[in-house]
């Protein structure tokens, strides 16, 4: 018994199987975590090697190069880049996507061990660090305080950080810009020298005073008493009263030579939030944790915790990656809902029968739920890719049910009972239904084979659409007949129905449409000579539109945040930088109403650690993070806001360089910049070339934020010793440098212990004794002979430009000039940039290459072109085997070029650029549009086979298939419409796909209805008719001579 026969005969089993499937699906849905993107392991490893004291170029020759040579042979390695800074070498290794990183890091480790012996002795062992997308903080809070500011570190540590760390899924909680407490002993050098003291002596005395010593036991009577000497300072005031020396019989107290300041740590790093002094709290999640859940828990916990904090401490959210996720997910859920509603309306419009509509609509939840089961089993999450895939599939899953139901209805109208009709009508179409679905799967399944970053996005899309469609076919040939048998009733069309009923209005309209179509097609068949040239003209004309719309990689999504970096003259003091920062702050607040929160960090944090490796920072740089209003509450997009911030910053004379970026760190798509890489060993030559190019690129229309990757040289003061004099005084470089360091940077003498915490006590020169070169030269140094000499006597203080960091890529030195496109297609900007590059004279040995998102785009488009070819071949194979003909698929595939025409026209009309996403839409169209043509051509073949004359067959088929074609197209088009029109969070990414599919499908449907019949008439003139006579009966000569008597 056939599957549909069994299904109809056992309705209870059939229905319950689907109920069970729904239950499993809904269970999976509740278990699925919500995230922005599918979890991917970023294929990056980095190797850090520190070599204290070495300059950037030393690091390059002694560390980076040997390591690079050793690592180049690691398998699956895609690219090797490196950065050699003073003291540290960082090598980034990028692997192919989906390569096993554990294996890779083992390879890296063993390759490192070969060269480790060749590294300089003082260099520390290389450290391998694995990147992980969960290293990105998921939420940032700004914390501001007034009165309690000074004690904030302790308060936050105890009452906020520790409780937050206990939340499930929180990986780590970090604070930056925290004011730490420190005790400074600011010594007056003149007084100090007058009393014959040195910083080191003062430090030693403080250290010696600040001790608790156990001094043994004494036995008294029956008791044993331990003795302790409590010498530790209780309060910082005690420091001032310590006796540090003796001069002419009098005690010298610390207060005589120095001021003791118990204050917050002097830092050259300031964090401000909305202009007020504040700090940032950031939270990293554990790998695999649910971002939305963790953010919600943290939020709840913080609310509870903030009740116990002093009233002036305010905690405000700066950036929450979950809000974009939630926004996008809600937005997509809405899209999905509208899509479902539209599909229901379309089906109802064409069928005009509630019961039939219900039966068809039921396939939607069943197929979607199958996708949830798939996601659950494979350990995936609900993310914007899986949801978008669902809304793409929603219009297609009803198609098969429609075909089956249509045939069942036909049989019922002919008098069969619903049960019989359900079985025998399904029998007639089930094979055709499966084959048309195969063509769609033939397009979507290859998507799962795409490699690289685009592969991560599209393999899930391909898998989900394939699965939902396959399930929908299964439902169409089991559930649809079963329910039809149970529910469908004969309800003939009433001839004189009232206008307000379906029979009276829509049905009549559809009849009228059929007639119009028959007339059009009849005309078209007799005017082939007009139709064909017009079609060719339209095709080539629309292809030209692709040149106009321009290309880009992936549309930037509006995440309601943007970041800016402002650079002042190198070496600017941080107080000065701070003033500029405040000015920009107030300007932005006054002029740009969309910005709700500004968080600023200025200067460098000495304790920055690893983070400071990734960004260049110094006392002259300011970093901004702007939080904008939610997308729906503002008119301007984030790019326009960024542009107006640029307009504000650019006229400021002190700013020598700035960049405003709209891509946040939560996206995995990386930047959107065009990078021009200049390879060459000569630093000066490549610097000049980079400067020249950046000057030229600034004139290119739409090119913003032109940045050079190599840091500018930094002014620094170098103390150069005269070795001969050093020796004469019996001093060594190490001794003198320690002395200088202790006086300027300070000597950490001891620690003040209070309430279980320790605070550094730092002894150093007071501020106005270390502000000029003369003062540095005046630093007194006590020689071993007890004589005090000045630093200026044994050394020279010189101003000097320190060499920049050295970046390398593919084992060659490289400088990158990057450009951010604004309101102009990437391809156009690159064309202009290439023109500029060709005008520049290249020094010998220098090579220029364009990479960045342009390179990514080129690679992705190549991948897609290949994918398109594969899809075309697969679709052709499926159809050729279905029709058992090599010619029929070609007629059907006539509609594909016009789908691309439609894409071009739609992109042009909506002013959308051709992105990878839109291109994927175009590839998808291959599978979607041939479906229409298959329905039509298949029916023409059938009618021809029944002996009808060619033209008449075409017209009869056209009339009969018009509604199914319109209906399946309309469900797909309207199913995508919400995706194309959506304007909420994250909509920018997917709307080009919606636009492309809608444009392509509308246009190709019209073409299918006119051009495919014309093509059929032209190409199948002798036709498929009497295939049997041609093939099977060809050699049957044995009956020659015997004729019929009729």
């Amino acid at each position, binding site marked *: 018994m056939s599957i549909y026969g069994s299904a109809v005969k056992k309705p209870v089993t059939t229905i319950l199987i689907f109920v069970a499937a729904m239950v499993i699906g809904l269970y999976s849905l509740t278990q699925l975590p919500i995230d922005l993107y599918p979890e991917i392991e970023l294929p990056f490893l980095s190797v850090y090697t520190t070599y204290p004291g070495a300059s950037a170029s030393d690091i390059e020759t002694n560390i980076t190069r040997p390591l690079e040579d050793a690592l180049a042979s690691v398998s699956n390695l895609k690219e090797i880049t490196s950065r050699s800074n003073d003291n540290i070498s960082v090598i980034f290794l990028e692997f192919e996507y989906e390569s096993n990183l554990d294996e890779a890091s083992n390879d890296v480790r063993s390759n490192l061990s070969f060269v480790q012996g060749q590294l300089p002795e003082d260099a520390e062992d290389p450290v391998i660090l694995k990147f992980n997308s969960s290293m990105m903080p998921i939420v940032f809070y700004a914390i501001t305080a007034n009165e309690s500011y000074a004690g904030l570190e302790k308060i936050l540590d105890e009452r906020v950080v520790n409780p937050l760390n206990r939340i499930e899924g929180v990986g780590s909680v970090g604070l930056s810009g925290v004011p730490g407490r420190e005790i400074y002993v600011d010594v007056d050098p003149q007084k100090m020298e007058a009393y014959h003291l040195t910083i080191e002596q003062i430090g030693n005395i403080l250290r010696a005073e600040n001790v608790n010593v156990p001094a043994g036991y004494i036995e008294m009577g029956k008791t044993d008493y331990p003795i302790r000497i409590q010498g530790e300072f209780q309060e910082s005031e005690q420091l001032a009263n310590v006796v540090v020396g003796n001069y002419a019989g009098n005690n010298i107290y610390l207060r005589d030579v120095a001021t003791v300041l118990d204050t917050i740590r002097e830092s050259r790093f300031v964090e401000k939030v909305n202009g007020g002094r504040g700090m940032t709290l950031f939270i990293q999640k554990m790998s695999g944790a649910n971002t939305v859940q963790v953010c919600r828990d943290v939020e709840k916990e913080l609310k509870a915790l903030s009740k116990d904090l002093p009233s002036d401490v305010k905690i405000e959210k700066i950036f929450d990656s979950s809000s974009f996720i939630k926004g996008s997910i809600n937005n997509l859920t809405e899209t999905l809902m509208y899509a479902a509603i539209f599909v229901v309306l379309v089906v109802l419009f064409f069928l005009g029968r509630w019961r039939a509509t219900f039966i068809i609509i039921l396939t939607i939840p069943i197929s979607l739920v199958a996708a949830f089961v798939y996601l659950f089993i494979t350990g995936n999450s609900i993310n914007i890719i899986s949801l978008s895939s669902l809304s793409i599939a929603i219009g297609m899953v009803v198609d098969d049910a429609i075909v089956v139901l249509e045939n069942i209805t036909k*049989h019922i109208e*002919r*008098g*069969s*009972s619903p*049960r*019989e*009709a359900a079985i*025998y009508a399904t*029998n*007639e179409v089930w*094979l*055709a239904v499966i084959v048309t679905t195969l063509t769609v799967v033939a397009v979507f399944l290859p998507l799962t084979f795409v490699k690289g970053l685009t592969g991560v996005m599209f393999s899930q899309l391909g898998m989900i659409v394939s699965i939902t469609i396959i399930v929908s076919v299964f439902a169409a040939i089991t559930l649809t007949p079963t329910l039809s048998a149970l529910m469908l009733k004969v309800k003939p069309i009433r001839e004189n129905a009232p206008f307000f009923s379906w029979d009276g209005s829509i049905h009549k309209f559809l009849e009228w449409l059929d007639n119009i179509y028959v007339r059009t097609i009849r005309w078209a068949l007799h005017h082939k000579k007009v139709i064909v040239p017009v079609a060719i003209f339209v095709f080539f004309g629309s292809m030209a539109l692709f040149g106009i719309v321009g290309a880009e990689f992936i549309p930037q999504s509006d995440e309601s945040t943007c970041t800016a970096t402002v650079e002042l003259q190198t070496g600017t003091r941080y107080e000065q930088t701070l003033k500029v920062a405040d000015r920009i702050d107030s300007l932005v607040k006054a002029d740009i109403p969309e910005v709700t929160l500004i968080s600023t960090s200025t200067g460098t944090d000495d304790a920055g650690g690893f983070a400071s490796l990734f960004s260049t920072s110094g006392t002259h740089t300011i970093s901004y993070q702007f939080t904008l209003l939610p997308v729906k509450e503002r008119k301007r997009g984030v790019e326009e806001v960024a542009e107006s911030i640029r307009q504000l910053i650019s006229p400021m004379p002190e700013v020598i360089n700035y960049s405003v970026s709209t891509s946040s760190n939560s996206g995995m798509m990386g930047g959107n910049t065009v990078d021009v890489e200049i390879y060459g060993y000569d630093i000066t030559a490549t610097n000049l070339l980079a400067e020249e190019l950046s000057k030229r690129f600034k004139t290119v229309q739409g090119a913003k934020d032109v940045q050079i990757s190599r840091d500018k040289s930094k002014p620094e003061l170098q103390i150069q010793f005269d070795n001969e004099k050093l020796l004469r005084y019996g001093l060594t470089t190490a001794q003198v440098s320690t002395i200088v360091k202790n006086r300027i940077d300070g000597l950490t003498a001891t620690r003040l212990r209070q309430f279980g915490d320790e605070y550094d006590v730092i002894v150093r020169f007071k501020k106005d004794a270390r502000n000029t070169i003369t003062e540095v030269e005046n630093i007194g140094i006590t020689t071993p002979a007890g004589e005090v000499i000045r630093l200026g006597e044994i050394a020279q203080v010189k101003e000097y430009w320190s060499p920049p960091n050295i970046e390398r890529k593919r084992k060659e030195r490289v400088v990158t000039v990057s450009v951010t496109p604004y309101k102009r297609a990437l391809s156009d900007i690159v064309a202009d940039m290439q023109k500029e590059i060709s005008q520049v004279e290249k020094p010998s040995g220098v090579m220029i290459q364009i990479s960045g998102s342009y390179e990514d785009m080129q690679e992705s488009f190549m991948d897609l072109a290949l994918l398109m070819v594969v899809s075309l071949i697969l679709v052709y194979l499926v159809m050729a085997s279905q029709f058992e003909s090599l010619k029929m698929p070609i007629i059907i595939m006539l509609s594909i070029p016009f789908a691309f025409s439609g894409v071009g026209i739609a992109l042009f009309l909506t002013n959308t650029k051709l992105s990878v996403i839109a291109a994927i839409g175009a590839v998808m169209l291959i599978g979607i549009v041939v479906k229409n043509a298959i329905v039509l051509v298949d029916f023409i073949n*059938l009618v021809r*086979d*029944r002996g009808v004359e060619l033209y008449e067959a075409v017209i009869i088929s056209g009339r009969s298939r018009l509604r199914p074609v319109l209906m399946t197209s309309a469900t797909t088009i309207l199913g995508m419409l919400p995706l194309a029109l959506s304007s909420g969070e994250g909509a920018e990414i997917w709307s080009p796909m919606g636009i492309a599919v809608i444009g392509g499908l509308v246009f190709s449907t019209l073409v299918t209805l006119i051009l495919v019949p014309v093509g059929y008439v032209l190409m199948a003139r002798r036709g498929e008719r009497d295939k049997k006579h041609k093939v099977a009966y060809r050699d049957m000569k044995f009956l020659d001579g015997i004729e019929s008597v009729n």
Partner: protein
Amino acid sequence: MKAVMIIYNVAHTEKLEFALEKLEIRGYTQWDNVKGQGTLTGVPHLGTHTWPEINGAVLAVVSDSQVFPLLEAVKRINKVNEEVGIRAFTWEIQETV
């Protein structure tokens, strides 16, 4: 005793089975998937893509008195929709064993 052969579009299967039961015709032979084509009217029932409809066949050997109601039943089934198609043919049975 007469043999009645009924060739019917499978879409009539359940109606015919009901008729046989109602008329208490116990002995019959049924074939599924029988191809055929009418002499005068109707489309071929070949079970192909072009002519997807397919027939079934019932051969019932019944007493003379049962022939008339059975043919009447076939006529009524045919009246539901003549396009679907059902035909009956009868002939004499000489002997049975």
